[in-house]
Protein backbone atom coordinates (compact mmCIF):
# COMPACT_ATOMS: atom_id res chain seq x y z
CA UNK A 1 0.00 0.00 0.00
CA UNK A 2 1.69 3.15 -1.21
CA UNK A 3 0.39 5.26 1.66
CA UNK A 4 2.71 3.24 3.89
CA UNK A 5 5.59 4.77 1.99
CA UNK A 6 4.89 8.14 3.55
CA UNK A 7 8.29 9.17 5.01
CA UNK A 8 6.84 9.74 8.48
CA UNK A 9 5.72 6.12 8.72
CA UNK A 10 8.98 4.84 7.26
CA UNK A 11 10.91 6.75 9.89
CA UNK A 12 8.71 5.22 12.56
CA UNK A 13 9.66 1.82 11.15
CA UNK A 14 13.32 2.85 11.08
CA UNK A 15 13.25 3.68 14.77
CA UNK A 16 11.44 0.49 15.68
CA UNK A 17 13.83 -1.60 13.60
CA UNK A 18 16.88 0.06 15.17
CA UNK A 19 15.49 -0.77 18.58
CA UNK A 20 14.61 -4.36 17.72
CA UNK A 21 18.08 -5.17 16.40
CA UNK A 22 19.44 -3.58 19.58
CA UNK A 23 21.32 -0.82 17.79
CA UNK A 24 22.91 1.79 20.02
CA UNK A 25 21.01 4.50 18.16
CA UNK A 26 19.67 6.91 20.76
CA UNK A 27 18.17 10.37 20.51
CA UNK A 28 18.78 12.83 23.36
CA UNK A 29 15.70 13.04 25.63
CA UNK A 30 15.65 16.82 25.27
CA UNK A 31 15.46 16.47 21.51
CA UNK A 32 12.18 14.65 21.92
CA UNK A 33 10.80 17.35 24.19
CA UNK A 34 11.87 20.09 21.84
CA UNK A 35 10.28 18.47 18.82
CA UNK A 36 7.05 17.88 20.71
CA UNK A 37 6.90 21.56 21.68
CA UNK A 38 7.58 22.55 18.10
CA UNK A 39 5.01 20.16 16.64
CA UNK A 40 2.28 21.18 19.09
CA UNK A 41 2.79 24.85 18.26
CA UNK A 42 2.84 23.97 14.58
CA UNK A 43 -0.44 22.06 14.70
CA UNK A 44 -1.96 24.80 16.80
CA UNK A 45 -0.99 27.61 14.46
CA UNK A 46 -2.07 25.66 11.42
CA UNK A 47 -5.37 24.80 13.09
CA UNK A 48 -5.92 28.41 14.09
CA UNK A 49 -5.34 29.61 10.52
CA UNK A 50 -7.88 27.11 9.25
CA UNK A 51 -10.53 28.72 11.42
CA UNK A 52 -10.22 32.02 9.62
CA UNK A 53 -12.29 30.45 6.84
CA UNK A 54 -14.38 28.09 8.97
CA UNK A 55 -16.84 29.85 11.26
CA UNK A 56 -15.97 28.98 14.85
CA UNK A 57 -19.67 28.70 15.63
CA UNK A 58 -19.80 25.57 13.49
CA UNK A 59 -17.29 23.91 15.79
CA UNK A 60 -20.01 23.05 18.34
CA UNK A 61 -20.75 19.56 17.01
CA UNK A 62 -17.04 18.76 16.98
CA UNK A 63 -16.72 19.92 20.59
CA UNK A 64 -19.66 17.76 21.57
CA UNK A 65 -18.19 14.78 19.76
CA UNK A 66 -14.87 15.35 21.53
CA UNK A 67 -16.58 15.28 24.92
CA UNK A 68 -18.55 12.23 23.87
CA UNK A 69 -15.40 10.34 22.94
CA UNK A 70 -13.49 11.54 25.97
CA UNK A 71 -16.20 10.27 28.31
CA UNK A 72 -17.72 7.36 26.42
CA UNK A 73 -14.62 5.51 25.24
CA UNK A 74 -13.03 5.15 28.70
CA UNK A 75 -16.30 3.73 30.04
CA UNK A 76 -16.42 1.16 27.24
CA UNK A 77 -12.75 0.35 27.84
CA UNK A 78 -13.32 -0.04 31.57
CA UNK A 79 -16.24 -2.40 31.02
CA UNK A 80 -14.21 -4.57 28.65
CA UNK A 81 -11.17 -4.63 30.93
CA UNK A 82 -13.23 -5.55 33.99
CA UNK A 83 -15.80 -7.80 32.37
CA UNK A 84 -13.82 -9.66 29.74
CA UNK A 85 -10.26 -9.38 31.04
CA UNK A 86 -10.95 -9.59 34.78
CA UNK A 87 -8.30 -6.90 35.23
CA UNK A 88 -8.36 -5.42 38.72
CA UNK A 89 -10.44 -2.24 39.06
CA UNK A 90 -7.68 0.30 39.56
CA UNK A 91 -5.52 -0.87 36.67
CA UNK A 92 -8.65 -0.97 34.54
CA UNK A 93 -9.47 2.62 35.44
CA UNK A 94 -5.96 3.82 34.67
CA UNK A 95 -5.80 2.04 31.31
CA UNK A 96 -9.32 3.09 30.35
CA UNK A 97 -8.56 6.79 30.85
CA UNK A 98 -5.84 6.62 28.19
CA UNK A 99 -8.31 5.52 25.53
CA UNK A 100 -10.56 8.53 25.96
CA UNK A 101 -7.65 10.72 25.10
CA UNK A 102 -5.74 11.11 21.87
CA UNK A 103 -2.25 10.75 20.46
CA UNK A 104 -0.99 13.89 18.79
CA UNK A 105 1.66 11.78 17.04
CA UNK A 106 -0.95 9.57 15.41
CA UNK A 107 -2.99 12.60 14.43
CA UNK A 108 0.01 14.25 12.81
CA UNK A 109 0.91 11.09 10.94
CA UNK A 110 -2.60 11.01 9.54
CA UNK A 111 -2.31 14.66 8.55
CA UNK A 112 1.04 13.89 6.88
CA UNK A 113 -0.56 11.05 4.92
CA UNK A 114 -3.54 13.16 3.84
CA UNK A 115 -1.24 16.01 2.81
CA UNK A 116 1.00 13.73 0.79
CA UNK A 117 -2.08 12.55 -1.13
CA UNK A 118 -3.43 16.11 -1.38
CA UNK A 119 -6.61 15.19 0.49
CA UNK A 120 -8.29 18.15 2.18
CA UNK A 121 -9.91 18.05 5.61
CA UNK A 122 -11.98 20.23 7.90
CA UNK A 123 -10.56 22.67 10.45
CA UNK A 124 -12.48 21.22 13.38
CA UNK A 125 -10.67 17.97 14.25
CA UNK A 126 -7.70 19.93 15.62
CA UNK A 127 -10.06 21.45 18.20
CA UNK A 128 -11.10 17.96 19.18
CA UNK A 129 -7.42 17.05 19.53
CA UNK A 130 -6.98 19.91 21.97
CA UNK A 131 -10.12 19.12 23.93
CA UNK A 132 -10.09 15.35 24.35
CA UNK A 133 -7.23 15.06 26.85
CA UNK A 134 -9.13 16.82 29.65
CA UNK A 135 -12.42 14.86 29.82
CA UNK A 136 -10.42 11.63 29.61
CA UNK A 137 -8.46 12.57 32.72
CA UNK A 138 -11.70 13.50 34.52
CA UNK A 139 -13.43 10.27 33.70
CA UNK A 140 -10.30 8.41 34.78
CA UNK A 141 -10.63 10.06 38.18
CA UNK A 142 -14.31 9.12 38.38
CA UNK A 143 -13.58 5.51 37.44
CA UNK A 144 -10.81 5.36 40.03
CA UNK A 145 -13.15 6.71 42.71
CA UNK A 146 -15.79 4.18 41.72
CA UNK A 147 -13.20 1.38 41.74
CA UNK A 148 -12.04 2.34 45.19
CA UNK A 149 -15.63 2.34 46.41
CA UNK A 150 -16.42 -1.14 45.07
CA UNK A 151 -13.11 -2.34 46.54
CA UNK A 152 -14.22 -0.94 49.89
CA UNK A 153 -10.82 0.62 50.40
CA UNK A 154 -10.27 3.82 52.29
CA UNK A 155 -10.53 7.00 50.19
CA UNK A 156 -6.99 8.11 50.92
CA UNK A 157 -7.18 11.90 51.40
CA UNK A 158 -7.80 12.59 47.71
CA UNK A 159 -9.53 15.95 48.12
CA UNK A 160 -6.43 18.00 47.53
CA UNK A 161 -5.26 15.70 44.81
CA UNK A 162 -8.53 15.87 42.90
CA UNK A 163 -8.60 19.63 42.71
CA UNK A 164 -4.92 19.47 41.80
CA UNK A 165 -5.66 17.11 38.93
CA UNK A 166 -8.60 19.12 37.69
CA UNK A 167 -6.36 22.18 37.61
CA UNK A 168 -3.75 20.08 35.88
CA UNK A 169 -6.22 18.94 33.23
CA UNK A 170 -6.67 22.57 32.22
CA UNK A 171 -3.20 23.98 32.78
CA UNK A 172 -1.38 21.04 31.24
CA UNK A 173 1.47 22.41 29.15
CA UNK A 174 0.67 20.51 25.95
CA UNK A 175 -3.00 21.37 25.94
CA UNK A 176 -2.22 24.99 26.68
CA UNK A 177 0.37 25.20 23.93
CA UNK A 178 -2.08 23.74 21.45
CA UNK A 179 -4.97 26.02 22.44
CA UNK A 180 -2.97 29.22 22.69
CA UNK A 181 -1.13 28.56 19.43
CA UNK A 182 -4.52 28.10 17.79
CA UNK A 183 -5.47 31.48 19.15
CA UNK A 184 -2.29 33.05 17.84
CA UNK A 185 -2.73 31.43 14.44
CA UNK A 186 -6.21 32.87 14.34
CA UNK A 187 -5.40 36.47 15.22
CA UNK A 188 -2.11 37.23 13.45
CA UNK A 189 -2.22 39.05 10.14
CA UNK A 190 -1.42 37.25 6.91
CA UNK A 191 1.93 39.01 6.27
CA UNK A 192 2.99 38.28 9.85
CA UNK A 193 2.05 34.66 9.46
CA UNK A 194 3.98 34.40 6.20
CA UNK A 195 7.14 35.35 8.13
CA UNK A 196 6.84 32.42 10.52
CA UNK A 197 5.39 29.95 8.05
CA UNK A 198 8.75 28.58 6.81
CA UNK A 199 9.54 27.51 10.36
CA UNK A 200 6.18 26.21 11.50
CA UNK A 201 4.90 24.77 8.23
CA UNK A 202 7.81 24.54 5.80
CA UNK A 203 9.93 22.21 7.88
CA UNK A 204 7.06 20.64 9.82
CA UNK A 205 6.86 17.37 7.93
CA UNK A 206 10.59 16.82 8.16
CA UNK A 207 10.62 17.41 11.90
CA UNK A 208 7.69 15.01 12.20
CA UNK A 209 9.91 12.32 10.66
CA UNK A 210 12.52 12.77 13.39
CA UNK A 211 9.77 12.68 16.00
CA UNK A 212 8.32 9.46 14.64
CA UNK A 213 11.75 7.86 14.38
CA UNK A 214 12.16 8.56 18.09
CA UNK A 215 8.65 7.23 18.80
CA UNK A 216 9.52 4.09 16.86
CA UNK A 217 12.49 3.46 19.11
CA UNK A 218 10.33 4.00 22.17
CA UNK A 219 7.61 1.68 20.87
CA UNK A 220 10.25 -0.92 20.06
CA UNK A 221 11.54 -0.77 23.63
CA UNK A 222 8.06 -1.41 24.98
CA UNK A 223 7.59 -4.53 22.90
CA UNK A 224 9.94 -6.38 25.21
CA UNK A 225 7.40 -5.83 27.97
CA UNK A 226 4.61 -7.71 26.23
CA UNK A 227 5.31 -10.73 28.42
CA UNK A 228 4.72 -8.89 31.67
CA UNK A 229 1.57 -7.35 30.28
CA UNK A 230 -0.03 -10.59 29.12
CA UNK A 231 -1.91 -11.70 26.02
CA UNK A 232 -5.26 -10.23 26.98
CA UNK A 233 -3.95 -6.71 27.38
CA UNK A 234 -1.96 -6.83 24.16
CA UNK A 235 -5.10 -7.94 22.34
CA UNK A 236 -7.05 -5.21 24.08
CA UNK A 237 -4.52 -2.71 22.80
CA UNK A 238 -5.49 -3.70 19.26
CA UNK A 239 -9.21 -4.25 19.70
CA UNK A 240 -9.86 -1.05 21.63
CA UNK A 241 -8.63 1.27 18.84
CA UNK A 242 -10.79 -0.69 16.40
CA UNK A 243 -13.82 -0.07 18.63
CA UNK A 244 -12.88 3.58 18.96
CA UNK A 245 -12.35 3.84 15.21
CA UNK A 246 -15.82 2.42 14.57
CA UNK A 247 -17.39 5.09 16.73
CA UNK A 248 -15.15 7.72 15.20
CA UNK A 249 -16.10 6.69 11.68
CA UNK A 250 -19.83 6.74 12.41
CA UNK A 251 -19.71 10.05 14.25
CA UNK A 252 -17.47 11.66 11.64
CA UNK A 253 -19.53 10.53 8.68
CA UNK A 254 -23.14 10.60 9.90
CA UNK A 255 -23.16 13.14 12.70
CA UNK A 256 -20.41 15.60 11.73
CA UNK A 257 -20.77 14.90 8.00
CA UNK A 258 -17.16 15.70 7.24
CA UNK A 259 -15.24 15.00 4.03
CA UNK A 260 -13.11 11.88 3.60
CA UNK A 261 -10.12 13.67 5.10
CA UNK A 262 -12.11 14.96 8.05
CA UNK A 263 -13.68 11.57 8.75
CA UNK A 264 -10.21 9.99 8.71
CA UNK A 265 -8.97 12.49 11.29
CA UNK A 266 -12.01 12.07 13.57
CA UNK A 267 -11.53 8.31 13.35
CA UNK A 268 -7.86 8.64 14.26
CA UNK A 269 -8.76 10.77 17.28
CA UNK A 270 -11.23 8.21 18.56
CA UNK A 271 -8.93 5.28 17.83
CA UNK A 272 -5.75 6.67 19.35
CA UNK A 273 -4.78 6.88 22.97
CA UNK A 274 -2.69 9.30 24.97
CA UNK A 275 0.92 9.04 26.02
CA UNK A 276 1.51 12.67 26.93
CA UNK A 277 -0.88 14.17 29.46
CA UNK A 278 -2.72 11.11 30.76
CA UNK A 279 0.16 8.92 32.03
CA UNK A 280 1.47 11.46 34.57
CA UNK A 281 -2.09 12.26 35.66
CA UNK A 282 -2.92 8.59 36.24
CA UNK A 283 0.37 8.01 38.03
CA UNK A 284 -0.68 10.69 40.50
CA UNK A 285 -4.34 9.78 40.70
CA UNK A 286 -4.01 5.99 40.81
CA UNK A 287 -0.57 5.25 42.22
CA UNK A 288 -1.69 1.66 42.84
CA UNK A 289 -1.96 0.99 39.10
CA UNK A 290 1.04 -0.45 37.32
CA UNK A 291 2.46 2.14 34.88
CA UNK A 292 4.03 -0.52 32.70
CA UNK A 293 0.53 -1.75 31.83
CA UNK A 294 -0.78 1.49 30.43
CA UNK A 295 2.51 2.63 28.94
CA UNK A 296 3.10 -0.65 27.15
CA UNK A 297 -0.43 -0.58 25.80
CA UNK A 298 -0.40 2.99 24.61
CA UNK A 299 3.18 3.23 23.33
CA UNK A 300 3.94 -0.38 22.49
CA UNK A 301 0.66 -1.68 21.08
CA UNK A 302 -1.96 0.89 20.16
CA UNK A 303 0.37 3.56 18.82
CA UNK A 304 2.28 1.30 16.39
CA UNK A 305 -0.96 -0.43 15.40
CA UNK A 306 -2.54 2.88 14.50
CA UNK A 307 0.52 4.20 12.67
CA UNK A 308 1.21 1.15 10.58
CA UNK A 309 -2.20 -0.44 10.08
CA UNK A 310 -4.83 1.90 11.46
CA UNK A 311 -4.30 5.18 9.68
CA UNK A 312 -4.22 3.79 6.09
CA UNK A 313 -7.16 1.49 6.83
CA UNK A 314 -9.26 4.24 8.38
CA UNK A 315 -8.63 6.33 5.30
CA UNK A 316 -9.62 3.51 2.97
CA UNK A 317 -12.86 2.91 4.88
CA UNK A 318 -13.63 6.64 4.99
CA UNK A 319 -13.26 6.72 1.21
CA UNK A 320 -15.57 3.74 0.93
CA UNK A 321 -18.21 5.37 3.17
CA UNK A 322 -18.04 8.57 1.15
CA UNK A 323 -18.40 6.60 -2.06
CA UNK A 324 -21.66 5.12 -0.79
CA UNK A 325 -22.52 8.66 0.37
Amino acid at each position, binding site marked *: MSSLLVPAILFFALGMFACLIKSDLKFP*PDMHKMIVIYLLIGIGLHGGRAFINSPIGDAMPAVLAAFGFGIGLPIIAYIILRGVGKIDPLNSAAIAAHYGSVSAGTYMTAVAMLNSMNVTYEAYPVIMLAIMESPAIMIGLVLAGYSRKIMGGAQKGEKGMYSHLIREAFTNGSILLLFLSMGIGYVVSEPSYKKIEPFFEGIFMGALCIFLCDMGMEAGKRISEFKTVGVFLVLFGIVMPIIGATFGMLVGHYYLQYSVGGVTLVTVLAASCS*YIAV*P*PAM*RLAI*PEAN*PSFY*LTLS*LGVTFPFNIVIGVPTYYAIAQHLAGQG
Partner: protein
Amino acid sequence: MIMRPDTLIRMKRIEIVVDEEALGDLLGLCRTAGVRGYTFIKHAGGLGSRGERLPDDYALEEKNAVVILACEEQQAERIVTALRPRLKEWGGMCLVSDCDWVIGPAASY
Protein backbone atom coordinates in the same frame (compact mmCIF):
# COMPACT_ATOMS: atom_id res chain seq x y z
CA MET B 1 42.55 10.14 61.86
CA ILE B 2 46.01 11.39 62.45
CA MET B 3 45.15 14.83 61.16
CA ARG B 4 45.40 17.58 63.68
CA PRO B 5 42.19 18.86 65.24
CA ASP B 6 42.65 22.29 63.67
CA THR B 7 42.06 20.70 60.27
CA LEU B 8 38.85 18.84 60.85
CA ILE B 9 35.64 19.44 62.79
CA ARG B 10 33.29 16.65 63.65
CA MET B 11 29.96 17.23 61.92
CA LYS B 12 26.81 15.49 60.77
CA ARG B 13 26.25 14.72 57.13
CA ILE B 14 22.58 14.66 56.12
CA GLU B 15 21.51 13.15 52.82
CA ILE B 16 17.92 13.66 51.73
CA VAL B 17 16.12 12.34 48.65
CA VAL B 18 12.85 13.98 47.62
CA ASP B 19 10.76 14.43 44.50
CA GLU B 20 12.36 17.09 42.34
CA GLU B 21 9.23 19.23 42.50
CA ALA B 22 9.54 19.33 46.29
CA LEU B 23 13.16 20.43 46.21
CA GLY B 24 12.29 24.11 46.48
CA ASP B 25 10.15 23.49 49.56
CA LEU B 26 12.81 21.31 51.15
CA LEU B 27 15.54 23.89 50.61
CA GLY B 28 13.21 26.54 52.01
CA LEU B 29 12.71 24.43 55.10
CA CYS B 30 16.47 24.00 55.45
CA ARG B 31 17.06 27.73 55.18
CA THR B 32 14.32 28.39 57.72
CA ALA B 33 16.01 25.92 60.04
CA GLY B 34 19.11 28.07 59.82
CA VAL B 35 21.18 25.97 57.41
CA ARG B 36 24.01 27.94 55.84
CA GLY B 37 25.12 25.47 53.22
CA TYR B 38 23.85 22.57 51.14
CA THR B 39 24.46 20.89 47.81
CA PHE B 40 21.80 19.39 45.60
CA ILE B 41 21.81 17.15 42.57
CA LYS B 42 18.73 17.01 40.41
CA HIS B 43 17.64 14.50 37.82
CA ALA B 44 18.18 11.43 40.03
CA GLY B 45 16.05 8.31 39.86
CA GLY B 46 15.19 5.68 42.40
CA LEU B 47 13.04 3.00 43.91
CA GLY B 48 11.04 3.43 47.07
CA SER B 49 7.71 2.76 48.69
CA ARG B 50 5.94 4.39 45.74
CA GLY B 51 7.67 2.24 43.16
CA GLU B 52 10.20 3.23 40.57
CA ARG B 53 10.90 6.80 39.56
CA LEU B 54 12.74 7.09 36.24
CA PRO B 55 14.19 10.45 35.23
CA ASP B 56 14.60 9.57 31.54
CA ASP B 57 11.36 7.76 30.95
CA TYR B 58 9.52 8.62 27.80
CA ALA B 59 5.99 9.15 28.93
CA LEU B 60 6.33 9.10 32.68
CA GLU B 61 9.32 11.14 33.64
CA GLU B 62 9.69 11.27 37.43
CA LYS B 63 12.76 12.84 38.94
CA ASN B 64 14.23 12.86 42.42
CA ALA B 65 16.66 15.36 43.87
CA VAL B 66 19.45 14.46 46.28
CA VAL B 67 20.40 17.03 48.90
CA ILE B 68 23.64 16.72 50.85
CA LEU B 69 24.34 18.96 53.76
CA ALA B 70 26.96 19.12 56.46
CA CYS B 71 26.12 20.82 59.72
CA GLU B 72 26.67 20.71 63.43
CA GLU B 73 24.87 18.12 65.51
CA GLN B 74 22.33 20.47 67.03
CA GLN B 75 21.52 21.92 63.65
CA ALA B 76 21.09 18.39 62.28
CA GLU B 77 18.61 17.66 64.98
CA ARG B 78 16.62 20.79 64.15
CA ILE B 79 16.53 19.82 60.50
CA VAL B 80 15.50 16.24 61.13
CA THR B 81 12.76 17.37 63.50
CA ALA B 82 11.42 19.89 61.02
CA LEU B 83 11.73 17.52 58.11
CA ARG B 84 10.20 14.34 59.53
CA PRO B 85 6.52 15.28 59.30
CA ARG B 86 6.87 16.42 55.70
CA LEU B 87 9.30 13.84 54.39
CA LYS B 88 6.92 11.31 52.93
CA GLU B 89 4.63 14.00 51.57
CA TRP B 90 7.61 15.11 49.49
CA GLY B 91 8.60 11.52 48.80
CA GLY B 92 11.95 10.28 49.79
CA MET B 93 14.22 9.45 52.60
CA CYS B 94 16.74 11.01 54.92
CA LEU B 95 20.03 9.54 56.14
CA VAL B 96 22.27 10.96 58.85
CA SER B 97 25.90 10.02 59.32
CA ASP B 98 29.11 11.27 60.86
CA CYS B 99 31.74 13.16 58.92
CA ASP B 100 34.62 15.55 59.30
CA TRP B 101 34.48 19.00 57.80
CA VAL B 102 37.80 20.21 56.45
CA ILE B 103 38.26 23.66 57.96
CA GLY B 104 38.75 26.45 55.46
CA PRO B 105 38.63 30.26 55.36
CA ALA B 106 34.83 30.47 54.98
CA ALA B 107 32.50 28.35 57.10
CA SER B 108 29.20 27.63 55.41
CA TYR B 109 27.63 25.22 57.88
